[in-house]
């Protein structure tokens, strides 16, 4: 929704306590009068400082800008900028798991200060400097003695169900979050999970029996009047969820991580030359942010991220993204964010009017895109003509480093080994012609000891 020159974000409509708006490129949050008591408690009790210090909550400043809707406003706050908004269906297993554990830790600490989380949406968690943080400052409310955890169902649907499905069924099932915006329905999770999960105490309780209870009471119309839940019971439930999530583990089966995805047809000489060229192009353009499409385990992404350039390393393979994420955590690589993405079917706009969660394209354009050893996969494996790829890349970036892999290259030969070669237009000449419709070729360098060519392009 647009009001004058500002915009209330399409994702910010559920909670009447406030909303997010963008003004002159900056993100603000309006805290409404109805939330005054809870906001003041959050700030006065020390919970805010505690969580910010532990990097579990996004820091903010109270600012004097005029409210977006003045008659209901209490305060305007400006949260620290998040470099790139991501969604749970773009996270690897450990990213989702760490986000879940962060949510539970926040709830545990909040209870110490007599506050509680009123929601537990995975969309409220974002990665800031490589760590999962809560970005919804208005998620807290004063804990009323005897109340249960209002966000229990949401936590199970947004975190526990997808994590359990990824662990026990298939790692790709986090994609169910793309379909179900309020998390995976528990009856569906219970149906899909194997029988052996009934012996897992946490999964049995928080998914299987929880789903049965939901089904049993689905038709309840009259107001329910239930007993109070003691604080210890609430802490026990948070602890039980924490233990259940903590014990969920996933590792790519049948692979040795040390050699996983390290096959390459580059010689050491060729690889070093490619790295040198990329460094040279980065020096020339000095991008402030990069999307590395088909990043694998982020070998080339790191050429930029280790110099402080915020880089998103996208890959279609959950194992690659998982491995890269674990390495970023281990080595404190704050400027590198690995994410899951099928470039032939990138994250769409979903939710209410398809705007609640924005598409990949709408989260761009980015300063620079790396498309290294990617083009032949798009054109030959996915039958995408050069002009379509060029048009797409021109929509998402200002600068482009792209690698052309000719048909004579062993990788392309392998791809064509068992299919008819219908790609007469796959030539370097046509590639340059089609890309020149959208980009200016700034640099062009053959990679030594290979048949490949690297290009630096700038959008027209």
């Amino acid at each position: 929704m647009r009001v004058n020159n500002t915009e209330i974000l399409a994702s910010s409509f559920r909670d009447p306590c406030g909303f997010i708006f963008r003004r002159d490129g900056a993100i603000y949050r309006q805290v409404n009068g109805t939330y005054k008591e809870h906001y003041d408690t959050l700030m006065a009790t020390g919970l805010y400082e505690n969580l910010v210090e532990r990097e579990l909550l996004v820091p903010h400043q109270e600012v004097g800008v005029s409210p977006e809707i003045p008659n209901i406003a209490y305060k305007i706050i400006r949260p620290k900028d998040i470099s790139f908004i991501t969604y749970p269906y773009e996270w690897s297993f450990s990213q989702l798991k760490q986000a879940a554990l962060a949510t539970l830790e926040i709830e545990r600490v909040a209870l110490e200060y007599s506050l509680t989380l009123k929601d537990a949406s995975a969309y409220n968690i974002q990665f800031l400097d490589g760590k999962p943080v809560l970005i919804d400052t208005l998620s807290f409310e004063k804990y009323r003695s005897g109340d249960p955890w209002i966000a229990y169902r949401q936590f199970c649907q947004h975190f526990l169900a997808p994590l359990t499905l990824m662990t026990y069924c298939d790692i790709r099932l986090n994609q169910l979050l793309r379909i179900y915006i309020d998390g995976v329905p528990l009856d569906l999770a219970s149906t899909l999970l194997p029988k052996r999960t009934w012996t897992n105490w946490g999964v049995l309780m928080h998914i299987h029996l929880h789903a049965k209870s939901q089904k049993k009471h689905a038709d309840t119309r009259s107001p329910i009047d239930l007993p109070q839940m003691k604080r210890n019971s609430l802490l026990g439930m948070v602890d039980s969820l924490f233990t259940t999530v903590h014990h969920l583990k996933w590792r790519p089966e049948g692979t040795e991580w040390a050699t996983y995805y390290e096959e390459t047809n580059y010689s050491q000489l060729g690889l070093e030359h490619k790295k040198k060229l990329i460094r040279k192009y980065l020096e020339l353009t000095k991008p402030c942010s990069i999307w590395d499409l088909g990043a694998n385990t982020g070998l080339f992404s790191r050429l930029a991220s280790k110099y402080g350039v915020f880089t998103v390393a996208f890959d279609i393979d959950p194992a690659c993204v998982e491995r890269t994420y674990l390495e970023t955590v281990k080595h404190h690589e704050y400027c590198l964010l690995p994410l899951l993405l099928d470039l032939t079917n990138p994250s769409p706009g979903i939710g209410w009017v398809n705007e609640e969660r924005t598409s990949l394209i709408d989260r761009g354009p980015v300063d620079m895109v790396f498309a290294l050893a990617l083009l032949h996969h798009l054109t030959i494996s996915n039958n995408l003509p050069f002009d379509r790829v060029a048009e797409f890349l021109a929509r998402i970036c200002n600068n482009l480093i792209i690698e052309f892999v000719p048909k004579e290259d062993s990788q392309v030969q392998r791809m064509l080994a068992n299919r008819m070669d219908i790609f007469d237009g796959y030539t370097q000449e046509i590639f340059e012609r089609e890309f020149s419709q959208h980009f200016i070729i700034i640099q062009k360098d053959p990679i030594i000891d290979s048949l490949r060519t690297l290009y630096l392009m700038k959008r027209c």
Partner: protein
Amino acid sequence: MREKKRYLFLFLLVVLFVTQPVSAYLDPGTGSFIWQMMIGFVLGSIFMLKIYWQKIKSFYKDLVHHESK
């Protein structure tokens, strides 16, 4: 099935103290709400045992550590 219902009913009786309606912008889901109340007592008890066990362990650890000095 009948036996399970009987256990659930017993749980409800055990945790039955005072009633209080809950209001929030998020729909907690009736089934989730009831289930949470039912498991709360058990999880709370386990949690308390865990806390006491940790305290006992830490007491003996300190004792052994102290004696070894």
